[in-house]
């Protein structure tokens, strides 16, 4: 499938502009620019004393057909390539995945309050991570750490449990039953997680740090762990972007247009949950991105999922890389948890967009 089709529409629109979306191309350009700016800032700024011009030369040196001597020491080069770059890459992947998952949940449930953790992914991941931490199976660092694995498995089990409960509730498989099942599963798993946490107070700091979300342990291992899931999930959801616009008509009208709403919901929920579980596994619980980014995109660029989904990836990626940079710069050398920064920066920004936009949220 051509990249242009994947990111935007199909054939060129007709002469009267049917099928044209004036925000698609500029939105994508601005989105890519935002990612580039945030990534550059993330690579050039940090507590280590590295000259930014030399750091920039180091980056340019790695581009094909360009050879520049950066003058950086091996340790400084190592900081750029093994500390900052994986952190930027992980931030972009996590931000893009959470924002896309949030946008797709909002689309299939037709509920503006839906977020990636709606079906219990956060509670399941929290329980998995807590079990790993209190049993000493992992400390949140390293390749063989069990925290991401159990968080990933916990998130997937929670979503599967929600789906089974919601669709066996005898209420004609309505999305509302699924949402309520999500609330029940999340409450139940959170109760277990809190109980385990209470029984193991010596690890409460580690658990709390995981729950607030972090990218400070980012390494290429974590990037390679998340990347396949993020790309597979993103690709599948993007392919469904037109169908998700049909789903906005409700199940009855979508059926009358030849779409099976329950099948679409299952596929998109599976894809979004897989991406969310993988993101949560490597970064902990980073709230806010999955709600604020898609809604900001909607307020600025309109409600069509053909635009909202690809732009959510780009702006989610840029947003998280940027707030991570703030989190590690504002109180340097200490770090502010990224979950705090996402809410602290995101909430006022969202209010500004909400007040200045004439568009409606859907």
């Amino acid at each position: 499938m051509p990249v242009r089709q994947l990111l935007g529409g199909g054939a060129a629109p007709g002469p009267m502009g049917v099928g044209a979306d004036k925000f698609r191309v500029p939105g994508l350009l601005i989105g890519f620019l935002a990612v580039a700016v945030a990534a550059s800032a993330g690579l050039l700024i940090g507590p280590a004393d590295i000259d930014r011009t030399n750091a920039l030369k180091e980056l340019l040196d790695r581009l094909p057909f360009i050879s520049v001597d950066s003058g950086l020491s091996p340790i400084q080069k190592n900081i750029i390539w093994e500390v900052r770059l994986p952190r930027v890459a992980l931030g972009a992947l996590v931000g893009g995945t959470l924002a896309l998952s949030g946008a797709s949940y909002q689309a299939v449930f037709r509920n503006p309050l839906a977020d990636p953790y709606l079906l219990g992914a956060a509670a399941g991941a929290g329980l998995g991570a807590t079990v790993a931490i209190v049993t000493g199976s992992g400390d949140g660092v390293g390749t063989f750490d069990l925290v991401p694995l159990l968080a990933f498995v916990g998130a997937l089990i929670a979503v599967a449990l929600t789906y089974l409960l919601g669709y066996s509730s005898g209420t004609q498989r309505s999305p509302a039953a699924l949402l309520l099942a999500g609330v029940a599963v999340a409450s139940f798993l959170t109760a277990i997680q809190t109980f385990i946490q209470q029984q193991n107070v010596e690890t409460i700091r580690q658990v709390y740090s995981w729950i607030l979300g972090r990218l400070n342990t980012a390494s290429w291992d974590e990037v390679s762990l998340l990347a396949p899931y993020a790309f597979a999930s993103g690709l599948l959801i993007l392919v469904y972007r037109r169908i998700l616009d049909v789903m906005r008509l409700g199940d009855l009208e979508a059926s009358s247009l030849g779409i099976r709403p329950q099948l679409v919901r299952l596929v998109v929920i599976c894809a979004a949950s897989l991406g969310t579980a993988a993101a949560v596994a490597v970064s902990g619980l980073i709230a806010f991105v999955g709600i604020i980014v898609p809604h900001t995109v909607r307020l600025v660029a309109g409600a069509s999922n053909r635009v909202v989904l690809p732009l959510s990836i780009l702006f989610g990626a840029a947003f998280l890389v940027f707030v991570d940079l703030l989190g590690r710069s504002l109180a340097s050398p200490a770090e502010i948890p990224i979950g705090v920064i996402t809410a602290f920066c995101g909430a006022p920004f969202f209010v500004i967009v909400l007040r200045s936009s004439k568009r409606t949220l859907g």
Partner: protein
Amino acid sequence: MNLFVVNEVGVRIEDVPILSDVSLSVNTGEWVSIVGPNGAGKTTLLSVMAGLQKASGSLSIDGRNITDLTLRERARLLAYVPQHPEIPPGMTVNSYVLLGRTPHLPFLGMEGSHDFRLVEQVLEQFDLSSMGQRTLESLSGGELQRCHLARAIAQATPIVFLDEPTTALDLGHQQQALDRIRLLREEHQVTVVMTMHDLTLASQYSDRIILMSKGRIAVEGKPAEVLDPIRLSELYGAQVKVLQVDDHLVVVPSVSKENP
């Protein structure tokens, strides 16, 4: 020629019979109105015919049993406009009408230039070209109704089911909507089946009227055969008169001066 045949259809919801033993047929190019008092089963019958409500009995279109068709095949033959269609927030008129092309596209495919051209023509026919970039929530009731009809016509099906297409429209817009359907029916050779409350409009536009009561067909036939004042008074529980004005029948309530 029978295009659509409904054979002994029944629907029960929580053991309450909503439709019982309904059989009817619709001919190619015909305009059929289903009328009846509230709770007669009009909307249920229409959604059963559109394949959107499970029912006992059988339905066939052009000789093929509807259960043998996939959902997409069905959507290429039957368009359905519900009484209160969803208005997705922020969706533009262009995008909304374009959704009508869904059954003709590969499942995960995108629209092509043929779809854009067809939708442009439909928008022109419905006087919607100038408001293509406007959102649905910014439209008036009459404009919205035109959008719903335009989406159904963009679906390019031989049969269109309309559930109360003139609800919430004033007199002028009711007439405009029905005139437009009549024009499109002639241009596109579309067969129309619709539910209606307004018996006068139903009689003026339909070839045939099906009068329903308590989930069954009470009587069907040409408007003059069905709209009998005694029968209507019995079924609707109201005194009505049926007047002949020019070539049309007009159904009016007959208010007794003795019982204000």
